[in-house]
């Protein structure tokens, strides 16, 4: 599933066994794994069982202490981080201004829901269109200068969006209080979002999750299609060497702008979903920390792979919402426990552990940047191939 050519032995091998492989009746596992149908099917399956596994499954959910809403939130941020990674991981552009698209879409979706229509699908479309449009404008200005400047300029114009929402546009956005007038109608005019899904209640929970999950699967499919198209190939060529791409005759600037717009559009989808999720738009969705969070998620999970950033989003939100509530860090299975108890008295490693969550994330982030540029997903992939090698496979 990783789009990086991680297993180089495979690649060299492949040229030698092309004939043999085409003659075989069944396609090899690697082939299946790369196919679009498989990616979409696997994503659908994962999205469907995720809330059950996270919030309701025996043992697993007990250890994880997850809950339904967090599962929804993880998917929303996962879309955001995945779209962000199209820019950072595949085109090699680091934006610090994606809060502008996430927040812009969130506000646009909120205002649209209050003024025009409360249909969730239309809300998402409205927010996304707004984000795509603002990405076009912001990208046009920010891409005036390459490299270092791009990060600085996106950061600056993201902050400009924040200050716009804070006071000059406060009559629309609600200023410091955020936008509170979000109206949410029924999905397709039939399903109330907060109601449980009849029959599948135990698996996916509410209609809200079905909506978010469905959009997430669509987003993964779209991103997968983009990355495996010739168009996505150009993005990668630009990341590797934009000068050479220019010499081949590609209009690098236009491709960069397009990558920025696509990535902003994904951020817009996520931002609109966030409005639907929380029925409220906080001003902080425009603040630069939102951009910083998505940078951390993408890098932590692993840039340059489709699913890495989603994993990163899951880890970040898990630490932010669950780990931050941990009062005492104890050794596993010490102290009273539902399933396994080794010692009655908990072995306390650290008091007030939860307060350090942000610091720990920062340190892990620095460690990932320095030591594992391919992120945790890359680590898992390396680990997987190492295990396969041990098992005698290739």
């Amino acid at each position, binding site marked *: 599933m990783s789009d990086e050519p991680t297993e180089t032995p495979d690649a060299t091998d492949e040229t030698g066994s092309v004939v043999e492989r085409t003659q075989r009746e069944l396609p090899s596992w690697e082939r299946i794994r790369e196919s679009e149908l498989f990616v979409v099917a696997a994503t659908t399956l994962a999205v469907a069982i995720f809330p059950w596994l996270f919030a309701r499954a025996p043992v697993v959910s007990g250890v994880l202490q997850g809950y339904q809403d967090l599962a929804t939130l993880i998917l929303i941020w996962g879309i955001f981080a995945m779209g962000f990674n199209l820019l950072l991981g595949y085109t090699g552009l680091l934006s610090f201004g994606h809060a502008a698209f996430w927040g812009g879409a969130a506000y646009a979706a909120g205002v649209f829901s209050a003024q025009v229509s409360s249909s969730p699908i239309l809300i998402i479309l409205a927010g996304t269109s707004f984000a795509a449009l603002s990405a076009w404008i912001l990208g046009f200005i920010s891409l*005036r*200068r390459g490299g*270092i400047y791009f990060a*600085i300029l996106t950061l600056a114009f993201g902050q*400009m969006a924040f200050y716009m929402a804070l006071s*000059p546009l406060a009559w629309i956005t609600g200023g410091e209080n955020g936008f509170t007038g979000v109206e949410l109608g029924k999905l397709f005019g039939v399903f109330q979002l907060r109601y449980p899904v009849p029959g599948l209640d135990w698996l996916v929970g509410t209609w809200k999750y079905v909506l978010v999950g469905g959009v997430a699967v669509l987003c993964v499919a779209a991103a997968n299609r983009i990355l495996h198209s010739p168009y996505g190939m150009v993005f990668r060529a630009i990341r590797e060497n934009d000068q050479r791409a220019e010499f081949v005759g590609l209009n690098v600037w236009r491709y960069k702008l397009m990558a920025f717009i696509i990535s902003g559009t994904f951020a817009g989808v996520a931002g609109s979903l966030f409005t639907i999720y929380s029925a409220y738009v906080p001003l902080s969705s425009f603040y*630069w920390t939102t951009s910083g969070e998505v940078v951390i998620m993408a890098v932590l999970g692993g840039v340059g792979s489709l699913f890495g950033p989603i994993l990163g989003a899951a880890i970040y939100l898990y630490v932010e919402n669950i780990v931050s509530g941990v009062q005492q860090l104890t050794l596993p299975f010490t102290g009273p426990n539902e399933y396994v108890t080794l010692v009655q008295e908990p072995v306390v490693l650290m008091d007030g552990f939860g307060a*350090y969550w942000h610091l720990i994330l*920062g340190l892990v982030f620095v460690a990932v*940047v320095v030591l594992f540029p391919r992120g945790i997903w890359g680590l898992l992939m390396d680990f997987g191939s190492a295990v396969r090698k041990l098992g005698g496979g290739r």
Partner: protein
Amino acid sequence: MSLLAETVTVLLNGLQQGAIYVLVAIGLSIILGTLKFVNFAHGALYLIGTYAGLLITLKITPTGGKLADWGYTTLGLGWGFLPALLIVPILVFVVGLAMERFVARPFYDRPDTDQILLTFGLAIVVQEVFKILFGGQSYNFARPGWASGQVGLPIVGTFPEWRLYIIGITATVVVLVYGLIEYTDFGLVVRAGTRDAEMVELLGIKLSRPYLMVFGVGAALAGVAGVVGGPLYAVNPNIGTEVLVPSFLVVVIGGVGSISGAVLGGILIGETLAVMVAIAPQWSQVGIYVLAAIVLLARPQGLLGAEEVAP
């Protein structure tokens, strides 16, 4: 107050506001220009400068964070402001040296994005450490007694004395750094290295030490900015990033690697802020970004930036 007096007051306020940005931006700009290193942790240096200045100048009672939990009721030396103004730049200079040696240098050959990510992560870590130690709330950095009053000026009438001191201190420091870069052998090597590092090394001049110094000087400037800027605003862990973004704009507007560009950009931004606050306060923060966008569209390399030097 007459219109003239009001105008002059606004312009003076703008100059003072710009002064802080100038100090931070010069450091960013010379580091970016000579070392081609983007330092998103420059705001963290400002943060360190402010807290160090606070602790040297005053005795404070931590009202939150771990230090309070551990039972420290009074912290700080209480030596007053002038010692802080001397010690803090040296302290932050040393921090800057360490940062160049252990953070920046291993990353010179890595892509720009990696440098940004690393320094961004570092900025978060520093900010969190301060938040954990001192708590997230604000401390009051009282202005030194000898400068907390109002001073009579022609035309304007009265003006806060401290703001004048900031302008004065900044001007002195800027002149010193400008002299260092433009009129000393050290500055000659640095400028030559900015133009063509390879050629300078071929001539047998080792660039690693001048680079180390440039990073240290840039850091020290952020430290000075932290000390003089501290008493203007409440001191909390977020001030570092708050000052970083406008300072980046200053660098973009002025042009990378140019000290005079940073001064011009800083004054422009400061004045824009001050004038906007006076005539349309709602738009004051937005104004500086619009200014940056206009400069960028008209002159992408910055007002005083040279095209071939900028990365």
